[in-house]
């Protein structure tokens, strides 16, 4: 099995695997860890070369669809039918990104990871301002913090998917979930929706107003420098995945523990159609079984899926690191956690969101996703106009 490196998840997974291995000496699982950005390429190549690990970790959506259509991953529908208790354990909404043409190809696991607008409470207090509720608030906060000599937003722009999170939310707030649903369905000219162009325009306005920290294109998310900027007080806000809560808690020198980290839903846009309760992010992580594995390996993997992955210990570990596992009946655990404020915020988002949009780069096909990230990079650099962005992306529909 291959898994992502980086704390706190690496330790959690290693412990889960160790526990499973000592209880099932006949079905030993070995894990190799890779960096996120490198893994995404490596797994694709390995699957294409029939060298995939037995357990394929992924994000569901468009990538999983490619594997399923090439018969590289096992159809788990029947297995889930045989294990109804296991299926009932999860939030029902998480199966969406694991399903291709009505069949389930992956086991949802880990936790829901919505994108959250984080802010540094100290800096907000110093400036005497409130967290943003509308896009206009954002633009005025940008001015306030720039005048204070603090960067308004931290951003690891070199990773590109970090910039994408901004577009995901903005497009939802401006045009509602229908716009991306049309894109996802590959409807003709879906990218040419006026909401897309308005989204691009707003982003470029924010870039022009120095909304993002100087040199954001030189910062990568893998180095976690973007998070360090927020907790070290060099930037006032950051739009990022909820998983950064755990890593900031670990690396932030009591920034989180002392209650200095604030979080709010993404602001609304005046005249926009999207429900402010809508969320975007990763509904879960997913694990599939390679169809090229031997029968014995497949059995071991299924056993691990059933008994090894979301054990009580693992669930507790996720909650302790500030994440909301995707299993039912955890309200009590969340409420007794020291991070209950944040956990309930995320849990509420997961439960109450009328629409939870999966990250675009995972939902779309790899071909369209690569073009998307490339064009987002250029949009943030202002080397293409919002109109060109929409046109370039429109050319990828159906690919």
């Amino acid at each position: 099995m291959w898994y992502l490196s980086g704390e706190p998840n690496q330790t959690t997974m290693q412990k889960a695997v160790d526990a499973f291995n000592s209880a099932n000496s006949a079905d030993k699982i070995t894990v190799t860890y890779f960096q996120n950005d490198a893994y995404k390429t490596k797994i694709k190549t390995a699957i294409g070369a029939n060298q995939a690990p037995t357990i394929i970790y992924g994000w569901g959506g468009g990538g999983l669809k490619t594997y399923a259509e090439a018969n590289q991953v096992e159809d788990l529908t029947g297995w889930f039918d045989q294990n109804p208790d296991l299926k009932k354990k999860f939030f029902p909404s998480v199966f969406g990104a694991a399903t291709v043409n009505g069949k389930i190809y992956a086991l949802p696991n880990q936790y829901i990871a919505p994108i959250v607008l984080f802010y540094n409470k100290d800096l907000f207090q110093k400036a005497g301002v409130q967290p943003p509720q509308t896009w206009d608030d954002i633009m005025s906060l940008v001015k306030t913090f720039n005048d204070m000599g603090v960067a308004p937003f931290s951003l690891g722009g070199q990773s590109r998917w970090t910039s994408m999170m901004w577009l995901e939310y903005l497009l939802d707030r401006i045009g509602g979930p229908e716009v991306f649903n049309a894109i996802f369905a590959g409807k003709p000219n879906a990218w040419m929706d006026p909401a897309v162009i308005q989204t691009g325009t707003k982003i470029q306005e924010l870039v022009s107003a120095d909304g993002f920290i100087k040199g954001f294109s030189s910062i990568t998310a893998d180095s976690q420098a973007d998070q360090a900027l927020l907790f070290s007080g060099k930037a006032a806000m950051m739009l990022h995945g909820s998983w950064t809560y755990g890593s900031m808690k670990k690396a932030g020198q009591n920034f989180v523990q002392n209650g200095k980290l604030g979080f709010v839903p993404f602001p609304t846009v005046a005249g926009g159609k999207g429900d402010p309760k809508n969320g975007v992010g990763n509904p879960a992580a997913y694990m599939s079984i390679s169809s090229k594995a031997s029968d014995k390996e497949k059995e071991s993997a299924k056993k691990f899926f059933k008994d090894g992955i979301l054990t009580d210990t693992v669930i507790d570990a996720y909650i302790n690191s500030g994440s909301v596992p995707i299993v039912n009946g955890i309200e009590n655990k969340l409420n007794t956690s020291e991070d209950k404020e944040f956990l309930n915020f995320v849990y509420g988002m997961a439960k109450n969101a009328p629409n939870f949009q999966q990250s675009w780069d995972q939902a779309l096909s790899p071909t369209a996703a690569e073009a998307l990230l490339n064009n987002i990079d250029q949009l943030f650099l202002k080397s293409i106009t919002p109109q060109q962005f929409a046109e370039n992306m429109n050319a990828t529909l159906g690919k």
Partner: protein
Amino acid sequence: MSNAVSTAPRAAVRPASSKPTEQRKTALAWLTLPALFFFLVFAVVPLAGVLILSFTSWDGIGAIGAAGLDNWFSVLADPGLYNALGLTFLIMAVSWLVQTPISLLLGVFTAGSQRYRAALAVLYFLPLLLSSAAVAIAFKALLDPNFGLATGLGLPFLAQDWLGVPQLALGLVIFVIAWQFVPFHTLIYQGGVRQIPKSLYEAAQIDGAGTIKQFFHITLPQLKYTIITSSTLMVVGSLTYFDLIFVLTGGGPGNSTRILALDMYLRGFRANLMGPASVIAVILVIIGLALALFLQRLGGKDKQGSQLEGL
């Protein structure tokens, strides 16, 4: 020369020496087999594979389907290709212009026999020992605008958006490539300079030529073939600059450092478009062969002429 004339003497000699030569020739042919085998398996077969793939559509995972000339038309019509081509040649040219004089001068300098020069030569050599990926990761960390060298050393001018401004990123890539490869070419020049007979310099000294005159009239002309070798390696090698740029910028910001080799990789392995990626691979092979042939010609014309006439 007529055939009759030329074959006659050969036929006459044959009875005496033909057997051993024949045998020797067969033996030599056998000796080339392993090399030929590896060349076939690792060069010719993949090359043929890529050529075939360039006429198919394949996502790297599913089934391979025929696509005719579609990939070729779409790639040749794609402005991305010309951007990548332009960048490749730009980096090639600038790299050559930057690296050649530096390595030439360093090579001449380190070829001297003084102790301190040997010590410095070891230092200059160090970057060559590091892998490209490690070099790229190190530079990326050093150039982080907020937590990098600029903050560490308190040098605000270093806090540029190195990887975010297209021109800076391109300049940086050329700089890091030079930083990594100058030591190698220095080594080549050092060897070249040490081969130049001392008597040439002694003669020049007697004639009253100074250091600079000696450099331009002895060292430089004597290094002609070394320069050609080093340039060939630089130019053809620059077609394959990949790992360093991939880790350092990933082709960004935008497409401003997306050179041909990187473009091929990103199309093939990121966007799952193996067909168009193969088209670019074929284009790379053609350019590489053409350049190598051209440089060979440049150096090969008067290869027979000795540079040491009269010694």
